[in-house]
């Protein structure tokens, strides 16, 4: 039992790491039907900028808002350069290429600025584990879970309660109608990209003390997060959390009960099953595309 508890804890912590990244995919998909394939790189930039600030003597908690601002700016740049031209000409695939390209550019820039070594991110919390129901948890893992949930809750509240959030939801429901109602949909889309990179940058500094920090940290995590977004459903914040936890626990338990060599397999099999049975994801709304 203790083993299972331990595996589930680690699975949840790992799953929440995936979920915070996947959340960024969901944000932009909700407004513009596009995804930022450079999400993993936005995360990496956030973590590296954060590390530079911490090493320069800025307090970890003070550093977070600065990194968030940086992330928002970076997301806006991606939208302006990569996505807007594609949306304007109603290109179906242009944004895929351009966001991937921008991701690669960001990675190369980071390699030149910070080098390609994996660096240690000093943990703001004590590194000794805490006993919880017979299994060990790192304080930092709890922070990741709490931070991720708080961030998602904040964004959901913003979308549901504030007037600006309503503009976001309206743009999602019907972009053309929203435009006719006087909503600046272009700005809303830029905003959603800024918000999505902001969450990625925040996720970066949140998880960096657990993972290692380096220019290549985003690649694997970004891909796993993509699987989470598909499993959970690209239109549902709740689905992202559940999808993340499912994938995380699937990885740790398979690793233990079957073989560590196959630990990535069940998650991906699940992905295939979900795509075959419920293409919109476990919690996604089935969208009817009018042609």
């Amino acid at each position, binding site marked *: 039992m203790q*083993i299972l508890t*331990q*595996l589930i804890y*680690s699975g949840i*912590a*790992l799953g929440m*790491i995936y979920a915070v990244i996947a959340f960024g995919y969901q944000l932009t998909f909700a407004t513009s039907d596009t995804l930022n394939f450079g999400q993993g790189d936005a995360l990496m930039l956030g973590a590296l900028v954060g590390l530079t600030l911490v090493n320069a003597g800025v307090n970890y908690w003070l550093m977070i808002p600065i990194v968030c601002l940086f992330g928002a700016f970076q997301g806006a740049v991606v939208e302006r350069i990569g996505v807007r031209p594609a949306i304007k000409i109603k290109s179906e695939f242009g944004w895929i290429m351009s966001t991937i390209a921008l991701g690669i550019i960001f990675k190369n820039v980071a*390699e030149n600025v910070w*080098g*390609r*070594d*994996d660096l*240690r991110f000093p943990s703001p919390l004590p*590194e*000794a*584990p805490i*006993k919880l129901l017979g299994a*060990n*948890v*790192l304080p930092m893992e709890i922070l990741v879970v709490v931070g991720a949930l708080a961030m998602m809750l904040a964004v959901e509240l913003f979308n549901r309660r504030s007037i600006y959030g309503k503009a976001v939801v309206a743009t999602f429901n019907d972009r053309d109608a929203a435009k006719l109602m006087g909503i600046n949909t272009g700005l809303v889309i830029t905003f959603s990209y800024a918000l999505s990179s902001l969450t990625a940058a925040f996720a970066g500094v949140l998880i960096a003390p*657990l*993972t*290692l920090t380096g220019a*290549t*940290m985003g*690649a*694997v*995590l970004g891909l796993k997060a993509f699987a989470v977004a598909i499993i959970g459903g690209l239109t549902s914040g709740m689905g992202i959390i559940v999808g993340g936890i499912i994938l995380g626990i699937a*990885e*740790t*338990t*398979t*690793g*233990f009960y079957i*073989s*560590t*060599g196959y*630990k*990535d397999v069940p998650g991906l099999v699940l992905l295939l099953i979900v795509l075959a049975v419920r293409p919109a994801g476990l919690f996604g709304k089935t969208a009817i595309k009018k042609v």
Partner: protein
Amino acid sequence: MTRFTKIALALASASLATLSLAADPIKIGVDGPFTGGSSSMGVSMRDGVRLAVEEINKAGGVLGRPLQVVERDDEAKNERGVQIAQEFVNKEKVAAVVGYINTGVALASQRFLQEAQIPVMNNVATGSLVTHQFDDKPDNYIFRNAAHDSIQAPMIVEEAIARRGFKKVAILADSTNYGQLGRQDLEKALELKGIKPVAVEKFNIKDVDMTAQLLKAKEAGAEAVLTYGIGPELAQIANGMTKLGWKVPMIGSWTLSMANYIDNAGPGGEGARMPQTFIQEPTTPKRQSFIVSYLKTFNPKNSRIDSPVSAAQGYDSIYLLAAAIKQAGSTEGPKVKAALEDLKTPVEGVVTTYSKPFTKTDHEAITANIPVFGEVKSQRVVYAYPDDQKKASEVRLKDVNAKGALTVSKKK
């Protein structure tokens, strides 16, 4: 420009051209990962090479010609290594190649150099197969001055089973060529002791969570964890142990001495033990002068060489090649190779004094009696056993009869 200056310029450039002809440099290719997860080994190796080249050139070069290094970053990628090997052969026309940190890259790249009859001195890559890849060819151009896995694996097992008396051990190895070949060697060496590992687990490069692997080892009752991987993931293993509150000794291949393991694992990484050919301690005059000039030239963080073993072996590899070129009186591949196989004068290196380091059939300069055990202590690698440290000033010479190595045969 007046006519006079034109003439003067022409004369000057002509005399420069003849000068450079007189001292045409000997090009040596240097290949290693200078970026990425293995970079602490690659960069230290390169710096060791640079140091040796600078010293040799200051002393007048080899055959009256200066050495010139052609450095290329293979990013630990097999395909980059292959491109670089071809560039060395066709474009740069190097006399010899030193380097290769990653076993996979070495195996993929060195066939081009073998075919072009250019000697390769592997100064870091440890895969057992590296020097045996061309055993079936009449001439083998691949040499090595690093402790290969068939020495390291039995040393690790000897340390865990015989010296420290563990009965139950788990193996954690990464999924690369390096990790999996090393795992095979570890299993073979354990078998010779009549022991079967209680758990054999795998992890991927960039894995951030080792809970499943460690729990399996823990549940199986492992008293020690034997590792084959590189720095960042080894650090995740140490961090994972801290998290689980399960602390057993880590004993593994020499990569446990990498700076990115020591730094990223922090206090949880202390006590890890690994075979080392060189420990950053001034135990002989040669080692002292090496350490002093390395620290002076490259000024590493906290006066700690990122990977002392790589730096020392990189440095020695150049001296071995220089001695061979000098003896051959030529930079032609076959002649240099023949000289390496029959070095007349001993070469005093940092790791050991190489007297007759290679023969026609034996291309390994390091034998099982040379490496010692290092231990991570206060963020540095020190001698694990005081006895080794006391005797460190006695240089351990190559002993072909040294016991402990596994026999290597080329896979058909």
